[in-house]
């Protein structure tokens, strides 16, 4: 027996790519409108936060959340959506694992402000101003929200039921979410908690180059601009860092189809806690074993050091969900957050 669903969609610190991914459904958005009432969608409807607050807890079937948490308002929205919805979906890499802007966690918020308002080449700031939470202008007072100490993925604040991975989620993932909603409306059946709406295997399993792998030691690392890689062969075996082995599949190996290595936007492959740490550990034991002589002086003993910027490359999309997930002040103790969440910090 079928019934209409109630659906709530919202965004936090996001680039808009997730919204475009939904928009790229095109006429299939109308299928969504046939099975669900959208009770909250700030980018597309005029329902207010107060309307969502007025609904009873658990009265919305599915909440879809994109973007990472960078302000207290983002955290409030996440908690509110969690309370009102039976199922909560982390949509896109930022909500699922922090996303690329999570690299900001390598720095303190102060350093980010210094760069933006003092150190950048074209900045003109003779009075050493900063954007202020309150500033007086001739006609009155203007306010700005403050930045939080670090970027958090959704599940550091609220338990997540399902994850739609990707930056942004590509068509197969969005289609699968549409299928989940259709099934929920039709039969009431829902995927289990923790379900990820993508493949249950690492990207390598679906990579068209998988058959080319020899399984032997890897060469010393090269950087993507330094070589013209063979478009048929495994990129790792050509010395290019590729996150395929530790990244969940389901995208169709899109980047590989244009001869570019995976940077891990689908997050950890099943069973991995910290994909970047796992990959670094693996590479440390197999990289450049037979090729020490090719390495520059001083790096021969540590061939894995031919990998430049391991933090920014291996944690490209997942730093805020990693074991060590942000820069911590010396002497600040445990490194937990500001007490904003109910989650797993």
């Amino acid at each position, binding site marked *: 027996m079928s019934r209409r669903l109630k659906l709530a969609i919202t965004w936090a*610190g996001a680039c808009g790519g997730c919204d475009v991914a939904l928009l790229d459904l095109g006429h299939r958005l109308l299928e969504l409108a046939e099975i669900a009432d959208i009770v909250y969608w700030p980018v597309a409807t005029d329902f207010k936060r107060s309307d969502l607050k007025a609904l009873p807890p658990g009265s919305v079937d599915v909440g879809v959340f994109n973007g990472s948490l960078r302000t207290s308002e983002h955290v409030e929205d996440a908690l509110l959506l969690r309370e009102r919805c039976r199922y909560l979906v982390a949509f896109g890499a930022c909500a699922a694992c922090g996303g690329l802007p999570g690299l900001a966690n390598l720095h303190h918020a102060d350093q980010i402000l210094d760069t933006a308002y003092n150190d*950048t080449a074209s900045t003109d700031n003779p009075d050493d101003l900063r*954007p202020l939470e309150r500033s007086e202008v001739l006609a009155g007072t*203007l306010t700005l929200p403050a930045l939080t100490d670090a970027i958090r993925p959704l599940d550091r604040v609220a338990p997540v039921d399902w994850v739609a991975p990707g930056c942004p989620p590509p068509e197969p993932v969005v289609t699968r979410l549409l299928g989940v909603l259709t099934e929920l409306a039709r039969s009431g059946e829902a995927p289990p908690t923790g379900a990820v709406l993508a493949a249950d295997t690492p990207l390598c399993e679906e990579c068209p180059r998988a058959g080319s792998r020899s399984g032997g030691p890897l060469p010393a690392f090269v950087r993507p601009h330094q070589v013209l890689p063979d478009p048929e062969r495994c990129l790792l075996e050509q010395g290019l860092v590729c996150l395929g082995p530790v990244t969940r599949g389901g995208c169709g190996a899109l980047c590989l189809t244009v001869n570019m290595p995976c940077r891990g936007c689908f997050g950890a492959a099943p069973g991995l806690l910290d994909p970047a740490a796992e990959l670094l550990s693996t590479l440390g034991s197999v990289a450049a074993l037979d090729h020490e002589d090719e390495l520059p002086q001083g790096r021969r003993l540590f061939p894995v050091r031919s990998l430049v910027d391991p933090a920014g490359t291996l944690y490209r999309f997942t730093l805020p969900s990693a074991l060590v997930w942000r820069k911590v002040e010396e002497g600040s103790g445990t490194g937990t957050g500001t007490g904003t969440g109910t989650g797993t910090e």
Partner: protein
Amino acid sequence: MGQKVTISPVTRLEGHGVIEIFLDDDGNVADAYLQVVELRGFERFCVGRPVEELPRILPKICGVCPGAHHIAAAKATDAVWGVRIPPAARALRELFLAAHVAHSHLLHFFALAAPDLVLPADTPPERRNLLGLPAVLGKELVLEALAVRGLAQRIQGIIAGHPIHPVAAVPGGMAFPLDEARRDEIAAAAVRLLAFSTRALDLLEERVATDPDLAALLVGEAYRLSTHCAGLVDEQGNLAFYDGRVRVVDPDGAEVARFDPADYLDHLAERVVPWSYLKVPYLKAKGWQGITEGSDSGVYRVNALARLNVADAISTPLAEAARQRLFAFFGGRPVHQTLAFHWARLVELVHLAEEVQRLAADPVITDREVRVVPSGRPTAGVGAVEAARGTLYHHVETDPDGILTRVNLIVATGQNNAAMNLAVRKAATSLIRGGRVDPTLLNRVEMAFRAFDPCLACATHALPGKAPLEVKVHHSDGAVLTLSRPCER
């Protein structure tokens, strides 16, 4: 102090924005501000990253204009090594960028601009959006608009791996060549894209010719802003997107600067203001004069209308004829009417479609030589393109290993920061009188802002329903009156 009117959120521009309108004791507008209330810190966390990764990192700034960031970053990395890319790579990047800007312009016009421009003024809010268009324009046309935008996305996906966040442009060229089958697919899409683009332009021109209210809105004083304009032009002074020199014209249209984007620091600076996270770019030659209009002010505009104001001509025939019709309507170049940005966008759309068709037919496009490996010592570089919303500058510096030491980004929407503030202030001042604030008036204030196409406005309004808008009137005695109204797209 009088009242304060807050419009929040107005719409999104690479994050979140708020409009604050202050009323004096007589209820007239004392001042108005557009605030950008978010900062993500790309300029900081890119430091320490390998420079060749930038074309994959910087598109994440904006999911609506990622293609422009992709190409600007790739050009900056080319410059870091001083590498000349193969002709096929150049053609592929140009084709990709043309499809990208076409997708953005299509979405903006039909999802955002058209409901204000072609629907009768008394259309109720629930039909004053994309889904209200079929009643006036016909269902077939609206579906074709969505389908053709999808084709523009598809072209980007074919060339760069992903239709939203592209990956294929690298220092030295492109990571992968285009095969014949996919070229044929793009060529077929181009025919449909061009046919629809000219149809969309015809539609607007016919409306302007037959609807005196629309014509009056276009030329109205509430939406007129006199500033400098800036944009890329090629060697002949034609409109350019992928490459060129930045030409700056004064409010009378006289050229006051023409420079290589690599020299942008000699010409542009960004002022920090305490009331917004978005800095305010201005012309250095004029000095910081604050957010003011006129030829003595350093305020300048970018985006479609500014590009047509600086360009002498357009290289493709259909768009050139359309450009001449636009300037004939307004009585010459430059045009300072804010709502003319919508018209200029459609003129550009025709040009971009003509460019997609030309490039898809160019034999070089399927050449297998799409990359050279850069050599030598990396140093610094600037990459600039015309994004849908205006000139985009990426400036990077590296250490001898090509690790980023400094990054500076001037984005299109940022350069219109001052102009958007002025446009909002001017529209509010002429429309809000005696404390009378109603939803229709506020929508007309917002129209001044929307014409600049701040990022994500398009996605915001493409869907059924209405965008949120909250209006808070702050009385001097502390009382707050909250109004809410549907956002009428």
